[in-house]
Structure formats: C-alpha cells, structure tokens
C-alpha cells in the first residue's frame, strides 16, 4: 500500500561507543544521506519523553535500534501505542513514546520498530561487529525501499532479504 504523501520520522538510537549498540544511529546516518522527501531522520543515545512531541508531528514513526534477540538480520513490526509500560531507566520504550504522542498531543501517528540484530554490546568500542554490519546493510536496503514506496507492511526479515537482493520491488507481505 503506497502512501506517498505521508510524513515519516526515523529515529535511530543507541550508543555508538558500545559496539553493536550503535546500529540504530548507524542506520539513521545511512538513511539521512538518502534525503528522501517527507522523511525526517533523528538520532540519539536513547528515546526519551520529548521524542513524543516530534513523533506527534508525523504520520509514521520508525524506531530503529539494536536487538540482542530478534531474528537475523532484522525484524520490522508495527507497535501499539499502549505498548509496554515497563520503564527500566530514564529512557522510554518506543510503544510508550507513541502512547505519549497520542495521549498528550492527540496524534494518530503509527509506529514501527526496526530491530537490527547485534551481537557485541558489553565492551567499549566505536565499531560494529562484522555480522552486525551485514545486518545493517540488509536493514538499510529494506528501509530505503519501504520509505521510497511508503509501504510499512511488517515483513519477515528473510522474505525481505530476498526482495532486497532483487532490489526494485517494494517490501512484500508474508
């Protein structure tokens, strides 16, 4: 389903000084270079409450982060604004940011998580592991197509891999 007029915010978050935790910001950097119309890209260490104000201004928000247990090379799924309320730290989960955008700013923004599988997190270092870099490439290809065609249908990563390799078609539904 194409939605060429819809506005999109991509937030890549994580700590680039903690190895694969930097996958989110790395994806944000890659997507920002593309300069896709109607797509705003932001990057931060972690999500916080004020992100709700920016999320509320867009039709779609995509939260990109490293993951330790999602499928390889990435997963992409829609989230509900009610989401998890389990605040573990000063940061806020994507579903809660979306919920705040809805409750505080009367937004109807749809939210998605792009979870890129990482492997090394527990040391300091400003580089991605080789496998994480491969996953980042796959995720970037996927998101580029999704943003270009404004098709945010959740897809299984392995299906998307095939589409990405074939390049020209929008993400397919499984």
């Amino acid at each position: 389903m194409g939605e060429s007029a819809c506005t999109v915010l991509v937030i890549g978050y994580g700590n680039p000084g903690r190895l694969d935790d930097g996958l989110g910001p790395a994806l944000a950097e890659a997507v920002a270079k593309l300069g896709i119309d109607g797509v705003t890209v932001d990057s931060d260490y972690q999500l916080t409450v004020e992100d709700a104000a920016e999320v509320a201004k867009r039709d779609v928000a995509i939260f990109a982060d490293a993951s330790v247990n999602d499928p390889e090379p990435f997963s992409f799924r829609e989230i509900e604004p009610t989401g998890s309320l389990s605040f573990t730290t000063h940061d806020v989960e994507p579903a809660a940011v979306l919920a705040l955008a809805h409750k505080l700013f009367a937004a109807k923004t749809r939210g998605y998580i792009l979870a890129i599988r990482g492997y090394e997190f527990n040391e300091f270092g400003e580089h991605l592991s080789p496998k994480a870099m491969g996953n980042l490439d796959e995720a970037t290809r996927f998101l580029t197509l999704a943003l270009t065609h404004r098709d945010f249908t959740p897809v299984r990563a392995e299906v998307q891999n095939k589409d990405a390799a074939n390049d020209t078609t929008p993400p397919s539904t499984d």
Partner: protein
Amino acid sequence: MVTTTNNMNRVVIEPVTRVEGHGKVTILLDEQKQVQQARLHIVEFRGFERFIQGRPYWEVPVLVQRLCGICPVSHHLAAAKAMDYVTGTEKLTPTAEKMRRLMHYGQMFQSHALHFFHLVSPDLLFGFDADPAIRNVIGVAAKFPDLAVQGVMMRKYGQEVIKATAGKKIHGTGAIPGGINKNLSIEERDSFLKDLDQMIEWSRSALKIAKDYTVEHLEKLAPFGSFDSNHLCLIREDGAMDLYHGNLRAIDAEGNKIFDQVNYQKYLDYIVEEVRNWSYMKFPFIKSIGAEDGWYRVGPLARVNACDSIDTPEAEAARKEFMDVTKGKPNNVTMAYHWTRMIELLHSIEKIKDLLNDSDLQGTDLVVKGEWRGEGVGLIEAPRGTLFHHYQVNKDDQVTMANLIVSTTHNNEPMNRAVEKVAKDHLSGVEITEGLLNHVEVAIRAYDPCLSCATHAMGKMPLTVKLVDHEGNLLDEKSK
C-alpha cells in the same frame, strides 16, 4: 521474586525501574522475616578509562559522551575543563565560558525536569504503593495531561539549548580544550527567548508541587530512608552555589565545614575511593575522616545544604524557605532531594535567562591557549552531583591515564544506607508486596542515580546476580 536459601529468604528487585542502567537490590530476610541486610548492587562497566587511553586529548570531550545517554553534556564539559588545565588554559574568553555555562544550565534544566515529571511524579501523584499499571508516566499523561505536557516541553527546551551550544544533540563538539567552537546566533537566542517566560512559569509551578508535597507529608517523609550525612559540592569563592565551576566544600550533618575552598586539582589529597568485594562501584570517602564516617552525599540536596546563597533571586528565596525548615542547618531528609532539585530547576532557567540577555554569547573570541601542563582535573556539578574527570597526557598528545568519579559513585554509600533503612522500616515482618518493594525504589530514585552507561539493546540487559548471606559468603552467582 522471593527465594529461600539456607533458611534466609532473599528478595531481589531487578532491574530497579526508572533509574539509568542496571541495578539490583538484594534484601536478606531471616527466619522471622526480619530484614537482615539490604544492598544496592550496581553493574558498572569499568573499562572506559582503558578505552580512552592512547586517544589524542582533543578527542576526549567528545569520546566521553559515550559514557552515558542521559548526561553526556556533563561528561563533555568535565572533560573539556580537565583538558583546559592540561593545555595550560588559565581563563576562558567570556564567550567561551558563557556558552559552556548555557550548555550546562540547559542540561541541568532538562535533566531535572525529566526526573521530576516523568520518573518521580508517578510516586508523588499516585502514592508509593499505587497500582504499577498507573504509577508511571503514561498514568500521569492520562490523569494529569497538562503536567505531562509541561515535562515534555521543558525537557525539549533544555535539549534544544544543548543542541544550539554543543552543535548537535548527540556527540556534541561545542566545548574544546581552551574554549568553545561556536557562539550563539541572534536567531538561536530569539528562539529561546520566545518560550522563556513559559519555562520560568512552569518551573515555579514544579517547585511549588515539590515543596508543597514535602511540607504536607513531612511527618512521613522525614524518616523515609533518611540519616545524617556529610555533604560535598563545588562552591563559588564567595560561597554561592555555582554548578559550573568553583572549589570543593564539604560540610558535616550539622553544617560544620570539613574543608572549604579546596582547589579540585588536589582532590586526591581529600577524597579516597574504597573498593568493596560485593559491588562493582567504588565507595568514596573524605580522607581526613576515614571510610567509616567519611562518606557523603552529592547532588541537589548537598548543593543547597552546603552553599551560602544562590545568585538568582527566585531560587535564592526558595533556598531560604527550604533552609528555614531546619532552621538553617543542613536538611538530611532523603526525600528533600526532590524539593532541592526543583530549586535548581528554577535556578537553571533563571541563569539561562541571564545568559540569553548577555551579548557576550555573540562574541567571536572563542579559544585561548596556554602553556602545556600534561595533567589536569575537571570538575562540574552534574545534575546528579559532583563529577570528577582526571587525565594525564604524554608529549605525543595521547591520554596515558584517566580516572573518573561519577556522581552516582559518590552517592553509593548513601543510596545503600537509604535502601537498608527503608527495607528495615517497611519490609520487616510483613508480607512483601510490589507496593512495599517500590518503597525501596522510591528511596533510590530520590538520588536520580545513573547506574551505568547506555547499552540498552532491545530484549536484554547484561545483568549479574549475586547472592550473599548475612556473613558475606557468596551463595550463588548468575549472569544473563
């Protein structure tokens, strides 16, 4: 979670919610369900000092921001101040110092607003033992939407100030050894002035909420996780609060000065860090008093207790009102952290107002150079308390030694005492509920700890669990 081992019940809270990073509280109960011991364990990465060894000194103010996703600006500025000293900078240009101060007050403003509105207000508005399904920021948004919006917009304002002064929101590069790399444009200044009055009004309102809550509930709050303690902070030469720069002052629980106007380049003569085998985090203490009684608190409570005045009118009036409660003596009530944090919130926005109206921010003289020293210490009053950065740099410009003492490390002993006191006062001999366990977390949250750095990948946090019996024997250890 409750388990039984060797006739001792162990209650573990993990992770501690709404504090940064990874924390774990272990409470040991005896056969009569009396609390024998309660400890806050902190999982801290100690590899950062090694990580920056060998890096060129000018990279350090940017690199250290990787330490923390919540207070990167504090690390940025503390490292820059240390590198000022390393490079022999005696005094920054007015533009450089005021730009850094504006960055710092922006950080203080957003951090204090975030903590109060979104981490603490659920406890205050709904009660410590309210249903956790509503005792969170979404619950606040549902029942008190105006308050929640204020918190979001105040946090956003502070973040925009940081972006304008540090150059960007993530990995800011504004502060450099010897100065700053940009000034504030007229357009940036005017955009902040436009919303300033609203921010001041909301700050007054937040201060009133914190003050009224504390006064109205003083009987309950006074003993809650509270104890007499020393207090430590930076202080201006005239004794006024200064969150960006000054000398060290330490006072005891009665307000007597332990030391005063100490040049922080000599902090090692005054502060010692003790290692204990059950915690990753060190326990600093005042050298002249010793480990047993020399521990101290840092942060808003310590700063308001220890300063002689505050140099902005509304915050000074609020300070006097606060000190009147204890007749001018230090206030040692742990939950008074919230009131003092809101005094600092108001102080920060008053300072931002003063700075925005200062034309030095549009100056173009940004950097000075001095005579190489090769070693330096930078201190700053971060939102959570005094932050120490200490570096040695060789002739090839490479860092050879780094030692950081973060605010939460200073508060390690006080937080542990708060945990133990609340556990013994509220959990002994009763059926333990989530609401009662939250009492322990409420005491920890008063310090707004930043327990570790910002690795937060979805689905899992590195965590080590240690089970220690009442004699200190390690019974079990698990990592996940």
